[in-house]
């Protein structure tokens, strides 16, 4: 073994390079062999120096030489493998570049995959209902577009006269107290006609669905239950059929179990009850719309238009026959799918567009980066092309690299998407249909894969095409400094596009933010902090007697108020922001009793206990609160909201005046039940933050309920102002309730803040997502501007040096560089503003009290982007001003 000094020195240096010991020994042995052949004693230090340098290139740098030689006998697979290995080494050796590219791609593809998984679940993936496009939701509708539920006799006519539907069903949402073994439970139920199961097309998991004879009164009380209830409550008992359960105090025999796929009328529906037992309660008037809704399955071969025309014919027939009730009343039909996704679609569309934009901006950046890299390698590629490398091979090699980056970015993006989706689903958004089904599945993976390939080609092909068509002579002439004018133009165009896309996105985010701020500033009329609400529905059979019904609630309020940590407790028949309630025409004493349909002022009426207002933090504007003296036997009183006071008593003091909302539309016997106004409170938002119908509001003392409530007891909600955590409060309340009546479930437990959060959920999600995407877009665009200006400064170092040598000041140079960047930014902003104006209308449905083309927002965003862009270009421009003319010129 040679062990002279040169060998030890070489050994040390190779070891420092990270060359493996056996390999080191081989190299030294081979050099020793060479020296021996040449009859030389030692490797001289300069040669050793060069050798190590060259070997370093082999081990690290030299591998960057692309294997673009040769074509004969090279199958696609072998060259591909070569290219992949080469790309892998290249990327490993440029960790900074690789990290930037992969991070950009992971964010872009991840955001796209996440949004896709939501959109796919909601809008694209087939629902469990077979031939869902044949399922149609039906309603009655006035010709001026007001929708109503379906009158019972009208539905009978629809069913008898239509020629389009294979199944036409009626349903009504309901709830049922399940009692018996275990804790009482409040179930989401639906009263449905037997055709519902045929219309949805889902067979039962166990037993049978409802049968046609159960649509008529007088049949046994039966129930179909959900798979969820069957498993959770009955441990998937195989002998469940025939078992009787107590619903609302009545025994019902279970005849079937529906699989989880049956999510109609709601995914929470746990029990389907037959129509028969409730048919006798349906009003026989066609003018009464008792909350019944229709759903039907069109016959095979019948188109939606044909069905719509058919139902219109039926409606006209009914209209002609019963003009008194059905004049100008027709059928509202909407495909069931539309009904499910209609409200979320605009938001999803905007988000899909937004993530697409971010990815495009990312691609523009990457294309720029690749272009710059490809140009640095242009000369090498030119030489190789001249030596026989085919253009196809060069493109293949460059594309392999970009596709590999895209594949890695896509994989990471998919992980990111899975994480984001998990987070999103865990936040339990309630306004997105089927959100419980959202997951990153095979379809999302396929989408991400497709997107990665498309992205890789998008940002890789342009640079590859450019780099592979080098004008040999021009490339050699430029002696390694790429960047001809055409590529500078391409680069500039990419920046303009980036700025334009970013502006559109940021403008969208800005609009959403401003709209959201406005929405959050809407006065609710109450103070949600520390308020918990829950519901109790008393079984009508047991509590038909009004005093008994009142006594239960009075006792409940008394007991709850006494719980430690509760500062106020009250009940109300309506829940603010929930959108429900009872409405009626209202008039001031002295006004004539209006005819039906001529009511000018509609009021929401509610029965509230004295402490409801304190519990909800509703301030008293004037007058007094209800007291215990406002009892059933006392004089009728009411508290009204300011809007009622203003509307009915525009120029007078409403206090002490009398109003009525329970009058009959019968001039002979109006029986108005006047109530004296004893207090005035602010208007409380009951229907939502974004939209509130022009209804005024009034409250009656709970112990003086409206007559309507005496006949039909509403579900009462309890409102508790407390410092207790919701769980312990709920437990305490459940204890108190069970001491009054152990069969009453407490349900619907929510804080009022949750109500507000749900109310603002979609805008909040849009704001969060769009702001995030807008911010990302802006960062990417800024990076793009910075990159292009830096590159151009580097390219023009000599020119700048010459200018400075000829007397240009630093300020001149700064102005030159930043001025050019400014032109690009300006072009991007002009195009972006045009784009934002054009796309504005897609945002319209998502904005509250804002024009989607709000000039102030657009102007502000344009300014911000310009300033940020100029700062980004000023940094490399400052570097340009520090060019030493002598150094720059010497490099020539």
């Amino acid at each position, binding site marked *: 073994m040679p062990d002279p000094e040169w060998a030890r020195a070489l050994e040390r240096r190779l070891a420092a390079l990270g060359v493996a010991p056996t390999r080191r020994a081989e190299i030294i042995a081979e*050099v020793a062999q060479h020296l021996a052949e040449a009859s030389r004693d030692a490797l001289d230090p300069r040669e050793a120096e060069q050798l190590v340098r060259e070997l370093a290139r082999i081990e690290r740098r030299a591998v960057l030489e692309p294997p673009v030689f040769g074509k004969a006998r090279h199958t696609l697979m072998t060259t591909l493998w070569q290219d992949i290995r080469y790309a892998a080494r290249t990327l490993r050796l440029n960790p900074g570049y690789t990290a930037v590219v992969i991070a950009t791609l992971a964010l872009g593809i991840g955001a796209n995959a996440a949004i896709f998984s939501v959109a796919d679940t909601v809008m694209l993936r087939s629902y469990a209902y077979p031939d869902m496009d044949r399922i149609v939701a039906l309603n009655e509708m006035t010709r001026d577009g007001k929708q109503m539920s379906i009158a019972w006799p009208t539905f009978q006519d629809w069913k008898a006269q239509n020629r389009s539907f294979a199944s036409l069903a009626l349903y009504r949402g309901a709830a049922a107290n399940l009692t018996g073994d275990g804790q009482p439970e409040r179930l989401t139920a639906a009263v449905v006609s037997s055709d519902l199961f045929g219309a949805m097309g889902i067979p039962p998991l166990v037993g049978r669905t409802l049968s046609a004879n159960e649509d008529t009164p007088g049949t046994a009380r039966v129930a179909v239950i959900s798979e969820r209830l069957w498993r959770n409550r009955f441990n998937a008992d195989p002998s469940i059929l025939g078992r009787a359960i107590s619903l609302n105090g009545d025994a019902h025999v279970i005849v079937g179990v529906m699989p989880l796929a049956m999510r109609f009328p709601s995914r929470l529906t746990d029990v389907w009850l037959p129509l028969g037992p409730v048919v006798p309660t349906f009003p026989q008037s066609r003018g009464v719309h008792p909350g019944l809704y229709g759903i039907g399955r069109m016959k095979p071969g019948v188109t939606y238009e044909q069905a719509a025309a058919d139902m219109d014919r039926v409606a006209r027939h009914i209209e002609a026959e019963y003009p008194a009730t059905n004049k100008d009343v027709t059928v509202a039909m909407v495909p069931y799918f539309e009904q499910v996704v209609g409200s979320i679609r605009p938001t999803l569309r905007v988000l899909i567009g937004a993530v697409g934009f971010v990815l495009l901006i990312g691609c523009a950046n990457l294309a720029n980066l690749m272009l710059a890299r490809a140009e640095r390698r242009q000369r090498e590629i030119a030489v190789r092309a*001249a030596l026989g490398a085919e253009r196809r091979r060069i493109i293949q090699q460059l594309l392999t690299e970009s596709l590999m980056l895209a594949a890695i970015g896509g994989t990471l993006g998919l992980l990111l998407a899975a994480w984001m989706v998990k987070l999103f689903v865990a936040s339990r958004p309630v306004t997105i249909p089927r959100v419980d089904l959202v997951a990153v599945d095979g379809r999302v993976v396929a989408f991400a894969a497709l997107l990665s390939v498309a992205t890789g080609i998008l940002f890789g092909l342009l640079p590859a095409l450019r780099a592979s068509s080098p004008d040999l002579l021009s490339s050699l002439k430029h002696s390694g400094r790429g960047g001809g004018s055409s590529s500078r133009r391409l680069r500039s165009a990419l920046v303009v596009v980036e700025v334009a896309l970013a502006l559109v996105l940021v403008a969208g985010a800005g609009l959403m933010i401003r709209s959201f701020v406005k929405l959050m500033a809407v006065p609710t009329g109450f103070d949600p902090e520390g308020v918990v609400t829950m519901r109790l529905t008393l079984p009508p059979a047991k509590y038909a007697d009004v005093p008994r019904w009142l006594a239960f609630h009075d006792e409940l309020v008394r007991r709850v108020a006494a719980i430690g940590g509760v500062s106020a407790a009250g009940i109300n028949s309506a829940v603010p922001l929930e959108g429900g309630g009872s409405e009626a025409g209202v008039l001031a004493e002295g006004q004539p009793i209006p005819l039906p349909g001529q009511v000018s002022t509609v009021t929401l009426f509610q029965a509230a206990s004295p402490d409801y207002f304190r519990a909800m933090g509703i301030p008293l504007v004037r007058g007094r609160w209800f007291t215990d003296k406002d009892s059933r036997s006392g004089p009728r009183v009411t508290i009204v909201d300011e809007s009622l006071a203003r509307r009915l008593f525009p120029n007078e003091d409403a206090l002490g005046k009398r109003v009525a909302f329970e009058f009959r539309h019968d001039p002979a016997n109006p029986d108005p039940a006047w109530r004296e106004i004893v207090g005035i409170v602010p208007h409380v938002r009951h229907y939502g933050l974004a939209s509130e119908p022009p209804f005024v509001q009034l409250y009656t003392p709970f112990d003086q309920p409206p007559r309507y409530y005496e006949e039909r007891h509403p579900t009462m909600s309890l409102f508790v102002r407390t410092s207790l955590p919701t769980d312990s409060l709920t437990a305490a309340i459940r204890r108190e309730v069970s001491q009054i009546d152990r069969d009453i479930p407490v349900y619907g437990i929510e804080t009022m803040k949750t109500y507000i959060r749900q109310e603002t959920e979609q805008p909040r999600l849009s704001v969060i997502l769009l702001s995030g995407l807008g911010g990302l877009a802006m960062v990417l665009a800024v990076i793009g501007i910075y990159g292009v200006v830096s590159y151009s400064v580097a390219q023009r170092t000599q020119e700048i040096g010459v200018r400075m040598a000829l007397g240009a000041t630093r300020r001149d140079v700064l102005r030159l560089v930043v001025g050019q960047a400014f032109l690009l930014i300006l072009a991007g902003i002009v195009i972006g503003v045009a784009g934002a104006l054009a796309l504005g209308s897609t945002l319209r449905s998502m904005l509250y009290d804002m024009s989607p083309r709000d000039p102030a927002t657009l102007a502000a965003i344009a300014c911000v982007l310009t300033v940020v862009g100029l700062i980004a270009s000023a940094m490399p421009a400052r570097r340009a001003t520090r060019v030493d003319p002598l150094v720059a010129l010497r490099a020539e």
Partner: protein
Amino acid sequence: MEYMSGPIDRELKKGSAELLVLSLVEGRARHGYEIGKLIEARSRGALRYNIASLYPLLYRLEKRAWIKGQWVEKAGQRRRRYYRLTAAGRGVLAAQRSGWKNFVAAINRITGIEHA
């Protein structure tokens, strides 16, 4: 290639080196010193590779699996590393030859230098 009288452009030398090595090991396996000597001799001294440029070149080609080196001990001789052309290398050589031929022909057509 008599017209290559002056110092040969570095790039050209680099670009052509692979072709030269591949050509030399095409017929039979050769060791590094032998390859260097043959290039020098056949180019009549116009091309010269020292240890520092020759071996990295060989290692690079070996890394690409165009040539394959193997230690061989022959009776009465010292241990030497011989390089032979692989199947892949054969393909590359064919491609490079025709590419080079075309390149030279093109250059000649432009510069008007007749082939000697």
